[in-house]
């Protein structure tokens, strides 16, 4: 089979059974790869009501089908399981070199079932797969464990959990090498519940494309397209730090657990200039031509000697604004999160939540053991350690804000989550946009990464026409270049009034991002702006030899999205879950609240656009039939 490795590896840790699953061409075409494979496998194989931390849960890693090409940013890999935070579809995406290595070992995916008796790790050396005893790394942090595992298995790619995953902290992450990770929705806890410390992968089989010349030409074309994006230069130099200042300006930041919208010294704390101060070298994932990551180095002061990949918006906003730490402390927090193997967004939210409870007097020093205050880095890091090791109050907080809030009366008001998953970054009260609606509609809960306008111009923050539209600043050339079917383009974008229809755009954006996650490319703005289904369909055909057109590709992505929604519904999601935390509806922030009814109206409109029941958000039979689910 061209393009794909052609098989998936299935490991049952309970029975120590190792099987190969052949990849059927029809399955490959319908579900493309990455998250598509994951959705189908989880939907088919996890029974309703399964315990996310029990042996019935299945952890699936799938590589995007374009991974292995020189097409820019083609490096991503998706991991999915039933989430211990949301009890719905949990999924997370990561890049670096892992996807290529797994494909190079000869597998498109890795399916982990069951539960081991004692700590183990999985060693994959091409066709030789072994389940090995892992007591020598169990209990150690991620970086130490990587060093130990790499010393045993030379040149291997390692994906593993830290102490947080071992202790089944519900928002633990799976770390992918030193600096990258599958952060959100608690995949690390699932891996920890299976007592699987690490997966060590070695292998260098070639991936053979059907039309190598075409792949090369399209990759060159992709490079040129991405380089032509308006945000390309800025992203090359500063990465995601470009977006920190505008959000601060809109009062749309999550500051101190969403009690404020911005910080007075935000510009000094998190502007682009900190990249110049602390950042040293760029770090790229496989085939990436943006290299948005930077190695941050702190040479003096309290955190001297810290060396970590940082200077990205997620840790910066999560720790610098939400917890209120200084810039240097927020860089240090990245290292700690990566070592403990814990999601940066969620852990920041949980710490901020605890700090606010402390401030409000709901918990006190006796509960915690030390004083908590926003901006206190020692307290924040002590709490982070307690959570990761499940000590003291950390044991309660490790359950995530939704479950932790049930412990203390009145704490519910401060639990900032959607469907159990902590919301990072943006405050819809400050700026209402496709992006913020995405937090509500996101399959994996309160998360901002699965729905974003393909072209994001951070210029306006007006709530137009009852939340229905967002003001944009579209320019004609940008409009023309956008790779979107013409009818949809005219429905979504009103060039004359410079507005975007949020409901229509949300569907397109979600499907597009889902497509990216299926083929395995990155959602950095320069890519979103320029790469659409047309070039991806061409590349897919060249790579796999399976004829594919852009419409089929988008339909495949939509199929996956619907499948994930059906998974959530089967596992107990109801329409009422698609609600922001109460704080957004009631508590003024910079004079704004979110209007609950109007948001509900936009949401229902979005459901309608999706072909779902506008009352319940359940996919209609005709939609299921159209997509062939």
């Amino acid at each position, binding site marked *: 089979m061209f393009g794909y490795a052609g098989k998936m590896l299935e490991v049952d840790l309970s029975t120590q059974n190792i099987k190969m699953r052949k990849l059927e061409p029809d399955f490959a075409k319908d579900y493309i790869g990455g998250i598509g494979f994951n959705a189908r496998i989880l939907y088919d194989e996890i029974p309703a009501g399964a315990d996310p931390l029990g042996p019935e849960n299945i952890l699936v890693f799938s590589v995007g089908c374009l991974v292995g090409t020189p097409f820019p940013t083609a490096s991503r890999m998706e991991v999915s399981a039933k989430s211990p935070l949301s009890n719905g579809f949990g999924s997370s995406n990561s890049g670096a070199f892992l996807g290529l290595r797994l494909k190079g070992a000869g597998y498109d995916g890795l399916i982990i079932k069951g539960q081991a008796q004692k700590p183990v790790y999985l060693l994959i050396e091409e066709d030789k797969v072994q389940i090995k005893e892992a007591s020598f790394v169990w209990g150690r942090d991620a970086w130490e464990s990587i060093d130990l595992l*790499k010393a045993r298995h030379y*040149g*291997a*790619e390692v994906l593993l959990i830290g102490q947080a995953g071992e202790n089944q902290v519900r928002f633990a992450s799976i770390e992918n090498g*030193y600096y990258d990770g599958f952060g959100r929705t608690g995949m690390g806890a699932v891996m920890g519940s299976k007592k699987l410390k690490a997966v060590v992968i070695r292998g260098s089989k070639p991936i053979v494309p059907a039309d190598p010349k075409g792949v090369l030409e399209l990759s060159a074309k992709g490079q040129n397209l991405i380089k032509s994006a308006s945000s390309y230069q800025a992203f090359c130099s500063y990465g995601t730090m470009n977006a920190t200042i505008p959000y601060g300006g809109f009062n749309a930041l999550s500051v101190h657990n969403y009690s404020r919208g911005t910080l007075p010294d935000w510009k000094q704390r998190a502007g682009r200039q900190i990249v110049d101060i602390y950042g040293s070298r760029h770090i790229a994932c496989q085939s990436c031509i943006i290299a948005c990551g930077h190695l941050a180095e702190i040479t003096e002061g309290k955190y001297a000697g810290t060396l970590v990949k940082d200077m990205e918006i997620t840790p910066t906003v999560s720790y610098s604004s939400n917890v209120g730490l200084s810039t240097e402390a927020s860089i240090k927090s990245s290292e700690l999160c990566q070592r403990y193997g814990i999601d940066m967004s969620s852990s920041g939210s949980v710490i901020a939540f605890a700090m606010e409870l402390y401030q409000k007097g709901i918990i006190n020093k006796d509960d915690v053991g030390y004083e908590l205050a926003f901006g206190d880095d020692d307290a924040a890091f002590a709490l982070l350690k307690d959570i990761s090791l499940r000590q003291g109050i950390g044991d309660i907080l490790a359950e995530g804000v939704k479950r932790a809030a049930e412990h203390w009366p009145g704490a519910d008001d401060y639990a900032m989550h959607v469907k159990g998953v902590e919301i990072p970054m943006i405050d819809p009260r400050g700026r209402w946009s496709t992006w913020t609606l995405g937090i509500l509609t996101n399959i994996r809960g309160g998360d901002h990464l699965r729905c974003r306008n393909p072209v994001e111009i951070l210029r306006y923050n007006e709530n137009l026409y009852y939340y229905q539209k967002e003001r944009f600043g579209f320019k004609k050339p940008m409009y023309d270049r956008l790779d979107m079917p013409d009818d949809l383009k005219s429905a979504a974008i009103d060039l004359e009034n410079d507005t975007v229809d949020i409901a229509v755009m949300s569907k397109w954006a979600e499907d597009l991002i889902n497509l990216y996650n299926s083929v395995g490319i990155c959602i950095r703005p320069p890519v979103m702006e320029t790469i659409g289904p047309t070039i991806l369909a061409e590349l897919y055909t060249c790579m796999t030899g399976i004829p594919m057109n852009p419409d089929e590709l988008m339909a495949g992505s939509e199929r996956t999205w619907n499948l994930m929604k059906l998974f959530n519904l089967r596992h107990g999601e109801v329409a009422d879950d698609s609600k922001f935390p109460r704080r957004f509806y009631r508590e003024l922030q910079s004079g704004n609240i979110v209007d609950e009814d109007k948001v509900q109206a936009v949401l229902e409109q979005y459901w309608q656009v999706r072909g779902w029941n506008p009352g319940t958000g359940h996919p209609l039979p005709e939609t299921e039939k159209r997509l062939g689910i």
Partner: protein
Amino acid sequence: MTQKRLYHNASLCNGCGICQLVCTLEHCRQWNHYQSRIKIVNDTERNAFYSVCCSHCEEAPCIMACLMNTIYKEPGSDITVRDLYHCIGCRACELACPFDAAVFDVIQEKVVNCDLCGGRPLCVEYCPNHALTYDYPEDQADKNRNQAASQKFGASLLEVFKFSGKEV
């Protein structure tokens, strides 16, 4: 993954010859370094020791030279093995080997080469200086590359950061 092979690090070798002795003890049941499948060559000028051993060439000249077709690649692997039953000891393979790595076994009157002790080379196990290693060729190539790269950045880098995962 291909088969592991034997590698010798001359900078660690002190020429003790234990490898040769264990090799002969294992294969010839005698303590006689002339019959060893691995040879340690002494460079007296530089006081250094180098090793000569079968490199298990892919298209091995010994296979082509053999008059009896007794040398072949083990099916499914790339290790050169011999079927000594048919060997007539004509020494053509010894002559054909560009590395002087085929050894005439005077006891059996047949020519032999390193068989990697069936996957657990004793010379590696007994090497007191860890000069001999048994490693995948890919890894060895990577290590060479890493070494070259470390030289580019100077030793300072490796001093600042202790071991870290280096890979390609």
